[in-house]
């Protein structure tokens, strides 16, 4: 695992390597070489099983983190290839030609985060939500609680308690407040 990543570091400008477990490593590469690294891993290093593709919204840095998780059935190891793309006009090269199921992930990411994958089949079709007019629903700045409160009809009389506050009030009324109050809506 270590040897493999060291071998590839030069060619693919691998910057940030995290060995999460002996059989799982996350590497970060620039946006341009991510697909070629994935292809290299698939074709020459035996990482033939595409586990999943995911996206994390780092809104503070204005970046989306895309993850391609690959699995090698022979050595039983996983490599997660991470790449950061801009949050505005998010766009990424499509990898649908590598595995048959990738276009599904890309279609979901297009709907959930608004990341465009030009050339990916059926990428503009809706996936899970229908008739959606708001911003992509998995973006960090989309406030689901407010949306739900404004759109659907909350039943009057339903109370929502913050568990920390509620438990402190009920069980330990005398304990001093230590934790900072968190904004529960974000």
């Amino acid at each position, binding site marked *: 695992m270590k040897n493999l990543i060291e071998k590839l570091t030069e060619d693919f400008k691998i910057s940030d390597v995290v060995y999460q477990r002996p059989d799982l490593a996350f590497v970060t590469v620039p946006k341009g070489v991510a697909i070629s690294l994935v292809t290299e891993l698939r074709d020459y290093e035996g990482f033939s099983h595409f586990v999943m593709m995911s996206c994390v919204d780092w*809104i503070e840095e204005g970046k989306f983190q895309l993850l391609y998780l690959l699995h090698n059935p022979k050595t039983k190891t996983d490599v997660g290839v991470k790449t950061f793309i801009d949050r505005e006009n998010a766009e990424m090269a499509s990898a649908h030609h590598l595995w048959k199921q990738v276009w599904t992930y890309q279609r979901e990411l297009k709907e959930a985060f608004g990341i465009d994958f030009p050339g990916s089949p059926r990428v503009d079709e809706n996936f899970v*939500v229908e008739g959606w007019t708001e*911003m992509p629903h998995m973006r960090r700045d989309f406030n689901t*609680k407010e949306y739900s409160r404004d759109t659907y009809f909350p*039943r009057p009389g*339903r109370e929502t308690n913050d568990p920390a506050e509620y438990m402190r009030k009920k069980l330990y009324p005398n304990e001093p407040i230590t934790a900072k109050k968190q904004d529960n809506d974000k």
Partner: protein
Amino acid sequence: MSEKDMNDKVNEMLQRSEANVKKTEKSFVRPEDEEREVVAPDGSIIKVNPIYDYFSGEKPKEEKPCSGVIEKFLNWARAESIWVLGFGTGCGSIEIPPLVTPRFDMFRYGVQMRPTPRQSNAFIISGYLSVKTLKRVIRTYEQMPSPKYILALGSCTINGGMYYDSYSTINRLDKYIPVDVYIAGCMPRPEALLAGFMKLKELIKEGKGEKANEYARNFDEYKANQKKIIKDWNMPDYNW
């Protein structure tokens, strides 16, 4: 970065991403369903509106029950022969198989499953409803012959339950379609479901299973609520 800076930045991002993601003013009606003019084989021009041509758009009417003893007799028959539509809308449908198998056999109470809405008169809303499913549920419900009954299963149909803050699931079912019996719990046990059926039978025998008429009476109100959340309304107002 201090907290204030961070908040400012997030706000700025928020505004930018709102501008970034354009709210498209697109029509949700599919091209083949749009109102248009077609040329007939003989050269004449015909206006077609597929949504209303294929389905009658007429509003439902209240239907008067029969009088006295006859209605009581018919209600008894209705109560003893409840045909449930086999449409598992949520995770509660996992408790339907135990109901039709040896442990909690519901056939002995005259409750049976039917595959099509035309032939069923009870509808189990098994748990949370996403907006996408709600659209289908409304269509299905309106196709069922009156008198029809709805059993709402689980806390999520009562007040949203665990998903009260989800952008995709509705909170209160009774705002969109009238509900006869609520069965609370997450998830309710099969025994609770059987108790719900017993309660429904009682209601029908007492002549209180007239929710279909209530739907017709408050039709406009229900429709307004439905149209508020179903943005892509591409079906007639009432599906016959």
